[in-house]
């Protein structure tokens, strides 16, 4: 078999690609590793969401004891850490592993065995963290950022915390081992004509994401090692330097990770917006520059999590944090400029991408408020923060995730998802998201701290919490509709062609699903929208 346009040099030995379940589990083929990562992380996303549903049931009314406070503490800890370490970060990297080689015209990924090992370490990490639920004393109960000295063996006895620390460490190493090969692939295995500035926006967003993973995750590994020290010698944390030191090390990772959980979905939204507007993405170069600048700047803002500690240079971190609005604004310019000149087609992926635009903005604007110390002194540690990050991560990133999921599902499976159920999923999710998280801004402002197992009737938080919990029920329903869509579409198996959406990037130039080495023939690449160029030139229209 000849591969026209494949990178120079001999092909390696054929990747391990046996058939059946066993074949899947030992595969070093990038699409398989990508699908395994996506599938595992989306299953965990649903499971971690179910934990949140229990919390919202408890918080719907004051003075409730649906679960004991200790169980409630495990719920919010595993919901938060499960979502961040085990669901959203891996799903983003999984999409990258699947799509980037296709988008750049590569037949395989670099370092495939490393990436496969990464997947299995992630799974081991997930098993370790979640097995805390099965041990006496329960799972880790101290929140996803696990401040010392609370997490030392003095204040949190039991194996659940130990299993969590090991699990976070393993899954973080796993993600680094998936991200490194992905970055290397984008830098070294591009097809002829695929210069850096011809890479699609999604690929650029993954490159930048992988850079942040490699730069920030080591700090998490050190932070978890400090946690392990605390399990063995809690007396260390009677000294302030260890406690504030842990917080700095943790948040040095903890801020970039939220951009790791954001940029891939920005890339997905950019692809979907341009495809369903019928034009190439507007403002490509400024977007690439702003992604790089945004990533670099995001490494300098972590102290805004420390504003109330009295042990950080608040003015400096306020400056860097508020400055994030500039590259963010440039990206928004790209979104809006693309759709303003488009002929919009309202398929399910486009609905999610359009909703992303105003919804993420709520999260971003509230982030500016949190980046202002005088404001943060009031709303830090309250439901205002919970609202902020659910708007960025859920109303933003998860909507971007579903845009990408509905968009690329036909490519990966060769069948369609049902459009009607997709729209129902979308509308239920919009309503559920905003009714759940919007009111949290108010109740946080009024004085409700976060991570509280219950609150008093006299607090005045009851009505808003009830509304929020009703929203959560609608959200749960939207997820049921989504899962039903996946199930029934799989059964119906309506076949999808190689390019169902008139896509612009190389993955649409191969079959659905793609063959083992991705391409039989790669089209010429003259810009970041090679298929659009081809269509325009065969139409005889001008190619901008």
């Amino acid at each position, binding site marked *: 078999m000849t591969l026209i346009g494949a990178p120079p040099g001999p092909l390696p030995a054929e990747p391990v690609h046996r058939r059946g379940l066993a074949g899947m589990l030992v595969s070093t083929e990038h699409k398989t590793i990508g699908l395994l990562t996506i599938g595992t992380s989306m299953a965990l996303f649903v499971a971690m969401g179910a934990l949140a549903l229990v919390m919202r049931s408890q918080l719907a009314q004051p003075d409730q004891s649906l679960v004991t*406070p*200790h169980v409630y*503490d495990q719920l919010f800890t595993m919901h938060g850490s499960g979502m961040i370490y085990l669901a959203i970060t891996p799903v983003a990297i999984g999409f990258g592993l699947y799509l980037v080689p296709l988008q750049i015209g590569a037949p395989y990924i670099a370092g495939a065995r490393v990436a496969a090992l990464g997947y299995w370490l992630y799974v081991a990490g997930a098993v370790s963290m979640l097995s805390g639920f099965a041990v006496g004393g329960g799972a880790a109960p101290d929140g996803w950022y696990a*401040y010392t*000295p*609370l997490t030392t063996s003095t*204040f949190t006895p039991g194996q659940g915390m130990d299993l969590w620390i090991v699990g976070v460490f393993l899954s973080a190493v796993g993600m680094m081992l998936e991200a490194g090969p992905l970055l290397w692939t984008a830098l070294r295995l591009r097809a002829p004509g695929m210069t850096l500035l011809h890479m699609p926006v999604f690929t650029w967003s993954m490159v930048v994401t992988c850079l942040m993973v490699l730069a920030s995750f080591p700090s998490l590994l050190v932070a978890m090692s400090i946690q392990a020290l605390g399990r063995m010698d809690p007396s260390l*944390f009677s000294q*302030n330097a260890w*406690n*504030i030191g842990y917080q700095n090390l943790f948040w040095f990772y903890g801020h970039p990770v939220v951009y790791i959980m954001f940029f891939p979905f920005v890339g997905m939204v950019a692809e979907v917006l341009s495809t369903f*507007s*019928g*034009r*190439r*993405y507007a*403002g*490509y170069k*400024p977007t690439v520059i702003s992604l790089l600048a945004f990533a670099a700047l995001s490494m300098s803002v972590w102290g805004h999590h420390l504003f*109330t*500690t*009295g*042990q950080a240079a608040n*003015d400096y971190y*306020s*400056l860097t944090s*508020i400055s994030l*609005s*500039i590259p963010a*604004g*440039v990206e928004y310019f790209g979104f*809006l*400029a693309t*759709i*303003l*000149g*488009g*002929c*919009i087609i309202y398929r399910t992926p486009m609905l999610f991408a*359009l909703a992303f*635009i*105003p919804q993420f*903005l*709520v999260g971003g604007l509230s982030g*500016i*408020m949190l980046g202002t*110390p*005088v*404001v943060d*002194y*009031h709303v*830090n*540690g*309250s439901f205002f923060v919970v609202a902020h990050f659910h708007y960025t991560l859920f109303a933003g990133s998860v909507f971007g995730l579903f845009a990408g999921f509905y968009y690329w599902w036909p490519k990966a499976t060769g069948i369609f998802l049902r459009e009607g159920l997709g729209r129902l999923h979308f509308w239920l999710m919009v309503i559920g998201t905003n009714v759940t998280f919007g009111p949290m801004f108010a109740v946080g402002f*009024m004085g409700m*701290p*976060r991570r509280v*197992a219950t*609150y008093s009737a006299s607090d005045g938080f009851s009505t808003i919490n009830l509304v929020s919990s009703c929203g959560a029920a609608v959200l749960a329903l939207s997820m049921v509709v989504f899962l039903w869509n996946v199930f029934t579409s799989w059964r119906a198996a309506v076949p999808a062609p190689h390019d169902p959406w008139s896509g612009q990037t190389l993955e649409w130039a191969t079959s659905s699903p793609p063959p083992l080495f991705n391409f039989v023939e790669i089209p010429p690449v003259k810009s970041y929208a090679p298929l659009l160029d081809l269509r325009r030139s065969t139409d005889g229209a001008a190619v*901008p």
Partner: protein
Amino acid sequence: MAAAPGVLDPADLQSRFGQVFGLEVRIAIAVFAAVVVALAVALIASIFRQQPSTKSKYTVIELLFAGAVAGVAAFLITTSIDANNRHAAAAAAKHPPVRVQVTAFRWCWRFQYESAPVTVTGTCTGGNDPKLVVPTGVPVRIDLTSADVVHSMWVPHLRFKTAAFPDFVNSFVMVVNDPGHWPGYCAEFCGTYHYRMRFTLDAVSPQQYSSWAAHGGSSTL
């Protein structure tokens, strides 16, 4: 306009918060409205459009736009830093008349009045939340620490909180102008009973405060 060091800014914690937060909310609403309008225009214009635009570079407009965003960001940064400096100036009062050492512990609060001397504490169970009694119109300095894990002392009415670390003291100065009582919470997760680790800030007239302190801080006022 900036407070001289050591002299309390008459604008207390609450109004400084109100000014900055109010400004940011107004800017946020304006930005959100602009984006929603742009979105609406895009969707409506698309109905009448025959062909998608083939233009893909908007360099001049984009540069101007980025410049405008940078300008707003710079304005917000200077506002933020200026407001924070005023907070810091207010906290620098050297010899406030009332000084309370607050110790957060799992899971309640201890208030040790340096000047009184009075100690107030509680168990935070079944309505036994301790009261932090302060005189109105008088600077009160809080020196906050923890006996065990990291906590956070938050009085929403004051729009202010600060963290309680073991082996560390965070200080702030507050002035409560009007009498009243308001809830206080722990705002940093500290274990099983974090949710009920509450106190009440109780501001009374200076005369009532003096007689309360003279009686050893009894709970009846």
